[in-house]
């Protein structure tokens, strides 16, 4: 009986040792938790999830988080992030953070169209999450030099519940820089009509006056430019522009002061001389990136 037990114990010990030795020879280096192979289709995962699409979305999201957290992410590239988050948000369209993270991470690494696509998808799916159109607006002006689209998405963001008041200022700035100050005026007039508390009304009124100034000043700026082309130097008085038929009339200063031309040839108000800076070309705003993979960013 004792011999049998010794044989059994020896057999077990031998098998355990053999298993351990085989395990130690397995190439553990090949098992990289950050790697993403094939991204499954949302429809397939929906079937496999057995009625739990949010669970499938959350498990895939954990995979996406590992992919994002790869220490060698910049060398590896970010090609799989958009497909991953697209499937996650197909399975769970209310997964707001997935849209936000993917939208934020994709654009600096040259995947601006994918970033735009996921942010627009999120804007459609979650109209109460202001940050998604806000980020889309940022992409539009920062990477695409498209101020009008930026204004349009900032407007959507500003209208979302919970949007901070500064988003309204972004709408104004984007539309003005996109030569659409009229759109900013229309938006702010509506915002003013909807404002309930005195602080908001005061802030919107200030922004509306600025938008009206920008809308009118642009026409005067153009007339001044034509005058300069004609006479090399600028006009001494703005009324000269009317006399020369470059303007039908000098618009009133919305701030209640007088309009004048500064040294740079831009029209300003004596009551509030602030004007939005002219937009910089896109190449002047984006810092150069050294790694080749990141060099794809415009």
């Amino acid at each position: 009986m004792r011999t049998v037990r010794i044989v059994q114990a020896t057999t077990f010990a031998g098998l355990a040792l053999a298993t351990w030795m085989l395990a130690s020879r397995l190439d553990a280096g090949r098992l990289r938790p950050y790697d993403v192979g094939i991204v499954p289709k949302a429809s397939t995962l929906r079937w496999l999830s057995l009625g739990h699409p949010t669970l499938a979305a959350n498990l895939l999201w954990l995979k996406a988080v590992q992919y994002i957290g790869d220490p060698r992410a910049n060398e590896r590239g970010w090609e799989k992030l958009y497909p991953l988050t697209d499937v996650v948000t197909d399975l769970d369209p209310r997964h707001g953070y997935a849209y936000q993270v993917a939208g934020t991470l994709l654009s600096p690494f040259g995947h601006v169209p994918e970033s735009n696509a996921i942010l627009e998808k999120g804007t459609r799916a979650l109209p109460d999450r202001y940050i998604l159109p806000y980020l889309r607006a940022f992409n539009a002006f920062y990477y695409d030099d498209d101020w009008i689209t930026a204004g349009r998405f900032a407007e959507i963001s500003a209208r979302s519940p919970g949007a901070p008041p500064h988003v309204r200022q972004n709408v104004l700035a984007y539309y003005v820089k996109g030569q659409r100050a009229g759109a900013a005026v229309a938006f702010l007039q509506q915002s003013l009509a909807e404002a309930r508390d005195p602080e908001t009304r005061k802030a919107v009124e200030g922004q509306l006056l600025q938008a009206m100034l920008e809308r009118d000043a642009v026409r005067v700026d153009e007339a001044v430019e034509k005058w300069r082309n004609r006479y090399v130097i600028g006009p001494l008085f703005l009324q000269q522009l009317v006399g020369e038929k470059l303007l039908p009339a000098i618009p009133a200063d919305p701030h209640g002061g007088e309009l004048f031309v500064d040294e740079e040839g831009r029209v300003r108000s004596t009551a509030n001389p602030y004007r939005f800076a002219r937009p910089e070309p896109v190449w002047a705003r984006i810092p150069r990136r050294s790694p080749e993979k990141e060099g794809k960013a415009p």
Partner: protein
Amino acid sequence: MRHLLAISLVTVREVLRRKLQVNLLFFGVALVGASYLMGGLTLGERYRILSDLGLTAMQLIGVLVAVFVGSNLVSGDMERRVLHPVLAKPVSRSGYLLGRYLGLALVLTLNLAVMTGLFALILAADAGDLHPVGRAFFEAVALLEIQFLVVGAVAMLFSAFTSTTLAAVFTLAVAIAGQMTGEIRALWQGPGTWIPRLLWYLLPNLSALNANEALVYGTPPPAQAWLAAAYGLAYAAAALALAVLVFERRDLR
């Protein structure tokens, strides 16, 4: 009624002594605990992972308990030859079957209560207060309970006319298919749409009783969920009625 309660209490004691049930419960507790660790792997919105994985772990274990314990109750008694002495007493076949089911329901409720307690503790500890353990949480748990009752009733039905192994296999297949009937009906287009329609009515629509999304987003389940709850209870009752019908006619020799 007295016989019914006596049989159900015997069932509870018997099931609690079984290692399978205890093992599954232990595994369920471990899974709910593991969801806490998994929550740490995410980037923001930790509650989303925690609640979704935890609830699914509870569902998985509860369904497995209902399948394996439920399918063993009647057919197991027949295989062990303990059914005859029971039926020799003034206990009707239907009373015996319903008593067994009642016992199974108590066991499933007990299981769910243990897992729910742990799950609530984890959610509250993670949030630092009790706000995740609100209405949405208890409604999700209530829908899970109904799901277990449906699977348990299906297990009793199969157990009433076949062997333990076959009953477990059939019940597990129905439990899996029951999670897919909604998808099948929605996706099946073109000719032969009567097939998914028939399956929709024959199989229990268990996916209608899933409240993961409502729990993740802290919203009350849609009004349809309560209709689904009534449907689940009606389905369980119908399955039990059929089980009684079959069991009454079964030759026990």
